């Protein structure tokens, strides 16, 4: 069977360059066509629909021609994806709607401190390449829990692995579908709920028929769309402003201009020292400890997220798995080292054309986003000149000149408004919409597959019916995929307010739950089954406990678990003073759980002044410690298990886990 697959896929892989070359050319031609139609006077709304419709049709087409009835094709794309293309697919898999749309905005708001995300979401790949991925590829797992089960002998570790996987993947996939809805709503004026189900259809048609194989080739196509869409507007903007189309270099000048403007605002009373946070000055939003803790949690989380790790199960060899991680990081790097340029250009635009100007002279883009409530001036949505004049008139001592503290912007606006700020035609806005959609859909595909595979392969096949024939396994897999997808879309359509915050939890949950068991499983032969069970339980449990208590039950955290108010990163004073804390705890409306977002204590308490976004800082060492102590207290693994670990460490000799072929 294997030689047949290789012969078949050999001719396919050799023509990949040509296929994706033609595809990229076709995409560029399509952009030009839309640009011509725009000149001809076709309305923007139709152009927007063309962009989204065309790209989704292409993804669906790839999904349909890549359909498969083979188990190994369905789960690991026949292990025939070249390192370079797997790198692209991983890039799309990894970069979500939040990376594409939200990250530049976070950098705009947080300045230097936002770079924790840039560092965390790239540096994690070093851990993936060195500590984990090649060894899992050698083992030949279909899913991450597969490895846990083989290494820690049995279904307890497998089941715990599935629970951690579900906990960190489900909220994440809901957020992607939510992102799809937002993009369609903002760019296309589509109804949010309708958009969510359109997105769902786009996701399902890719992943259901062809599993990993279809998702892989769709993700490569989606990567090309998303990276072109991300780079084009900012490259044009850079060329316009500085005469050099390399934004990553020219934004250094923008940073200098921003710093100069920041100084002049202070001198001219356009900003107060308390509200102005100089863009390049560190640790104004996160204390140093929180900054480095966040980097650690994001990096270790990256190295533990199952939907990322499983991408490296698809390469032809262990060697290719390693090279593939390097390619992945290069493709991810292209976006992440551009995001700070977006942030700087946007900030410069706001600082130079808005702040210090009369309210009557605001540029048009302020109102077009203000109408959606995404730009606020003097605390009110900037819908029109009249609205902002009225809002600022209500502020005592306001002179009618916009000050820094009057201005508010939603993080999503930075990327999606750049084409408009640069005065580019609508075709570029449509392109950005298509890119954001590609980012959301590709990540959702990977996550859904990770969830459905864990349920069908680990729970159904390995734990419930070990004799299930191949055909039935694939049917179960597809049915579960649809069920999970519909459930996720339904959850997204209810617009859960906390969902975006919960995504950042996924990294801590994955880090605390899976990292110790994965790393020690390969690097420490003495690690045994009881140790792994203890490590996963303690690591995941403590991380989840810290998240849930500090977010939803802060009053219990303060009263029973020794938590205290987080501190202001600049002044070091508690966010909630001792007297206020006593007052809040005495108020039954506040001190009864679960706390809503508006609860004054929610996410404002913790241990050692550590934000709950970095909660793996506690779970991770606890998980390692529990695993070490319990392993040492119980019997060493058998000789067979030691040999198994040796085999994982040696690239030569084919996969260890053998799949029955019929």
């Amino acid at each position, binding site marked *: 069977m294997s030689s047949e697959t290789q012969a078949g896929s050999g001719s396919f892989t050799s023509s990949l360059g040509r296929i994706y070359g033609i595809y990229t050319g076709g995409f560029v031609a399509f952009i030009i066509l839309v640009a011509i139609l725009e000149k001809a006077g076709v309305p923007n709304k139709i152009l927007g629909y063309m962009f989204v419709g065309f790209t989704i049709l292409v993804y669906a087409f790839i999904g349909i021609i890549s359909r498969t009835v083979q188990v190994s094709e369905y789960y690991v794309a026949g292990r025939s994806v070249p390192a370079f293309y797997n790198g692209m697919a991983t890039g799309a898999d990894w970069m979500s709607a939040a990376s594409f749309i939200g990250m530049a905005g976070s950098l705009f708001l947080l300045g*230097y401190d936002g*770079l924790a995300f*840039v*560092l965390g979401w*790239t*540096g994690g*790949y*070093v*851990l993936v*390449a*060195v*500590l984990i991925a*090649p060894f899992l590829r050698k083992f030949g797992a279909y899913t991450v829990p597969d490895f846990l089960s083989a290494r820690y002998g049995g279904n307890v570790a497998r089941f715990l692995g599935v629970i951690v996987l579900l906990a960190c993947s489900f909220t994440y996939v809901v957020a992607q579908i939510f992102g799809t809805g937002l993009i369609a709503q903002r760019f296309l004026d589509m109804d949010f709920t309708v958009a969510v189900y359109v997105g769902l259809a786009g996701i399902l048609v890719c992943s259901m028929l062809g599993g990993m194989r279809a998702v892989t080739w769709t993700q490569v196509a989606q990567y090309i769309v998303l990276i072109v869409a991300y780079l084009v507007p900012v490259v044009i903007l850079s060329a316009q402003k500085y005469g050099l189309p390399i934004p*990553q*270099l020219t934004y*250094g*000048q*923008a*940073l*200098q201009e921003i710093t100069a403007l920041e100084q002049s605002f202070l001198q001219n009373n356009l900003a107060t020292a308390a509200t102005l946070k100089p863009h*390049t*000055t*560190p640790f104004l939003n996160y204390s*140093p400890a929180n*900054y*480095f803790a966040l*980097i650690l949690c994001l*990096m270790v989380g990256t190295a533990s997220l199952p939907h990322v790790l499983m991408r490296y199960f698809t390469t032809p*060899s*262990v*060697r290719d798995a*390693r*090279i593939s*991680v*390097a390619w992945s*990081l*290069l493709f991810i*790097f292209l976006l*992440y*080292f551009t995001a*700070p340029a977006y942030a700087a250009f946007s900030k410069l635009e706001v600082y130079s054309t808005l702040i210090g100007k009369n309210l009557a002279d605001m540029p048009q883009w302020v109102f077009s986003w203000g109408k959606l409530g995404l730009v606020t001036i003097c605390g009110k949505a900037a819908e029109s000149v009249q609205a902002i004049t009225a809002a600022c008139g209500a502020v005592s001592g306001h002179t009618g000149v916009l000050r820094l503290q009057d201005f508010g912007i939603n993080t999503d606006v930075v990327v999606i408004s750049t084409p408009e700020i640069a005065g580019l035609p609508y075709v570029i806005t449509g392109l950005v919409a298509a890119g954001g959609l590609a980012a959301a859909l590709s990540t959702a595909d990977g996550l859904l597959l990770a969830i459905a595979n864990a349920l069908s392969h680990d729970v159904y096949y390995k734990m419930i019916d070990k004799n299930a024939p191949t055909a039935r396994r694939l049917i179960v897999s597809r049915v579960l995929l649809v069920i999970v997808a519909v459930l996720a879309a339904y959850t997204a359509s209810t617009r859960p307010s906390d969902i975006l915050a919960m995504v950042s939890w996924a990294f801590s949950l994955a880090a605390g739950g899976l990292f110790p068991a994965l790393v020690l499983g390969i*690097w420490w032969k003495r690690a045994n089954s009881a140790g792994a069970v203890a490590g996963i339980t303690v690591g995941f449990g403590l991380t989840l406990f810290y998240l849930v208590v500090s977010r939803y039950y802060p009053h219990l955290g303060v009263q029973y678990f020794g938590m205290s108010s987080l501190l202001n990163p600049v002044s070091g004073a508690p966010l909630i003073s001792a007297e206020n804390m006593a007052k809040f705890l005495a108020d039954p409306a506040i001190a009864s759980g679960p706390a809503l977002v508006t609860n004054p204590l929610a996410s404002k308490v913790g241990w050692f002044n550590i934000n709950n976004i970095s909660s793996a800082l506690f779970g991770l060492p606890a998980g390692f410690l529990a695993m070490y102590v319990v392993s040492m207290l119980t019997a060493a693994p058998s000789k067979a298990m030691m040999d198994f670990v*040796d085999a994982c*460490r*040696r*690239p*030569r000799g084919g996969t260890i886990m053998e799949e029955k072929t019929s």
Partner: protein
Amino acid sequence: MDSQKEDHHWQSTSKLMLVMMALWLFFSYIIHMFVTPLNGIKIFGFPLGFYMASQGSLIAFVVMLFWFAKAQDKIDRDAGVAEDD
């Protein structure tokens, strides 16, 4: 496969792992602990501390991984445990 050769392979692999982890630690954390003094140095308008977090460390990570893939492959080949090409 004699076990001595295999032990040697794992020793070299572990050593490379430690080198990579040390570099990772340096570019992820140590360099950024000096962000404030580094920000006093300007390159193309970038304060150096800001530049390291926004580009410098990222470039280092990418280069490290390509180098690692090569170095580990050499270790595997020398020990005779590499996969067939």
